[in-house]
């Protein structure tokens, strides 16, 4: 905090000192709270958007198949996701540039292009799943997908193209706050606090043991919680918001709050799946688990239309949040590598390439979903496989960049304990990635 002694002005005969810009408050605590509220955004958005439509499906399915027995995994993933995202916060604040630009500049053109292509492919496949979810929910609510999907795509393009970062951030934060409804749903759906808390604190084997299906779902949960686009998104978001060195502690807090929220909401989603299983929901032969079917089941089995409609609308909310964050991470990354103007603070006229990439991602994914008999199942499986394979490479670059003393200096570079934690996470991710590969390629 900078201190200006106004007596100096009085001593020099200056009647009125030049007022510093910003909002004036009288209390130190109020100033800290106000500063935090100004900084908060990138951390909460990246974490809550991480619970996208695919995550809703994964978590509700985990609850349906394994009850509350996988809750301990959420507690383990909380620090993992925080530590990984905290690194991109430091990198973004120190350099004022995005993750794609850093890889390109420090590892050369080959790795730069590889990371960019890898990100664009995974992001596009994930985007298709977001629009597939919007289409499915629209059908379940009686709205024709031909109307709902293009409407959502246009809304997504409109909200990001206003030329104001703050406008986009406020709209997105409002969507994040809507997720609190998951907690309202979880209270009637849950079975008291004792059982879930015990399963969270004491790791237990999933119902039926560690079968290949259980391992696949555990890997899907890890892949959902730590995704490559999150690294690119938050660093670019921090850079676009022009966070200052002094904002680091507040952005860390923002990220921590976000990581707690994402796990709490995920647990609420698992409780919804658990309630469906306990009330006798069965899957039709040859059909995969579908959260829209689960919502309808719960609505007609004692929980009423509020629970049904809330779950359906929250799935759309998750898809919209995921779609805007993922499309932006693609557009920011492309703009950084190409050297184009790339900021939400710029108008469409001043950053045409950046907005064109954003709109292209959204429009193409939405269009693909509307094609009759598009291979959506194949795309959804491909997302899990490609993201699972590519995540370790994104984390390796992050770890190397955060140990780059020449770039970051002593202030921002990883401390030894950071490295220990991160190498454990990297080894864990590589191991899970190999298990996933073995399961998908050799058994299926």
């Amino acid at each position, binding site marked *: 905090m900078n201190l200006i002694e106004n007596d100096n002005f009085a001593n020099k005969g200056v009647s009125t000192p030049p007022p*510093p810009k910003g909002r004036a408050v009288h209390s130190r605590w109020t100033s800290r709270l106000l500063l935090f509220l100004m900084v908060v955004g990138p951390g909460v958005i990246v974490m809550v958007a991480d619970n996208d439509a695919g995550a809703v499906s994964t978590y509700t399915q985990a609850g349906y198949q394994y009850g509350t027995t996988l809750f301990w995994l959420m507690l383990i993933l909380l620090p993992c996701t925080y530590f990984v995202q905290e690194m991109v916060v430091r990198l973004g604040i120190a*350099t004022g540039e995005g993750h794609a630009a850093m890889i390109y500049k420090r*590892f050369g053109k080959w790795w730069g292009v590889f990371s960019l292509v890898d990100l664009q492919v995974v992001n596009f496949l994930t985007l298709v799943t977001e629009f597939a979810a919007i289409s499915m929910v629209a059908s379940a609510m009686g709205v024709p997908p031909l109307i709902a999907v293009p409407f959502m795509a246009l809304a997504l393009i409109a909200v990001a193209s206003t030329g104001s970062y703050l406008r986009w951030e406020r709209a997105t934060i409002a969507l994040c706050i809507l997720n609190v409804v998951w907690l309202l749903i979880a209270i009637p759906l849950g079975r008291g606090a004792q059982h879930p808390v015990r399963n969270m604190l004491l790791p237990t084997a999933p119902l039926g043991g560690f079968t290949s299906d259980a391992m696949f779902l555990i890997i899907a949960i890890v892949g959902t919680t730590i995704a490559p686009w999150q690294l690119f998104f938050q660093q670019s978001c921090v850079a676009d918001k022009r966070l200052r060195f002094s904002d680091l502690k507040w952005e860390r807090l923002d990220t921590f709050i976000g990581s707690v929220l994402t796990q709490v909401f995920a647990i609420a989603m698992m409780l919804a799946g658990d309630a469906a299983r306990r009330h006798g929901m069965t899957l039709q032969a040859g059909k995969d688990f579908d959260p829209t079917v689960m919502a309808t089941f719960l609505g007609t089995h004692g929980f009423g239309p509020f629970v049904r409609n809330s779950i359906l609308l929250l799935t759309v909310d998750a898809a919209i949040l995921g779609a805007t964050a993922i499309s932006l991470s693609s557009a920011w990354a492309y703009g950084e590598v190409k050297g184009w103007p790339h900021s939400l603070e710029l108008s469409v006229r001043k950053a045409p390439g950046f907005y064109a990439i954003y709109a292209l991602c959204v429009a193409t994914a939405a269009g693909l979903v509307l094609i009759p008999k598009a291979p959506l199942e194949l795309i959804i499986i491909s997302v899990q496989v490609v993201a699972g394979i590519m995540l*370790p490479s994104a984390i390796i670059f992050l770890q190397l960049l955060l140990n780059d003393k020449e770039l970051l200096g002593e202030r921002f570079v990883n401390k030894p304990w950071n490295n220990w934690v991160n190498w454990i996470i990297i080894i864990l991710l590589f191991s899970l990635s190999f298990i996933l590969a073995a399961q998908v390629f050799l058994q299926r």
Partner: protein
Amino acid sequence: MAVQVKTNQDELYYVVHPLFDEPEEKINADDLGPMPMSKSVKFSLYALRGYLIIMGLLVSFHVLSLAIHHVMP
């Protein structure tokens, strides 16, 4: 950034939103060029290449086996 202004009567704190603050000088990666290839960096990048090659081969094997299965069920 929060700026504290002290007068004889009162203390005032001015809080500035990052987007409306003066831009601060960041670390410039353009001046540094590519990262020096220390042993640990080289090892990490070689390990990553190996991992990607293994995964690429597994994907190719899987796609090929699916194609063969499709052609000759």
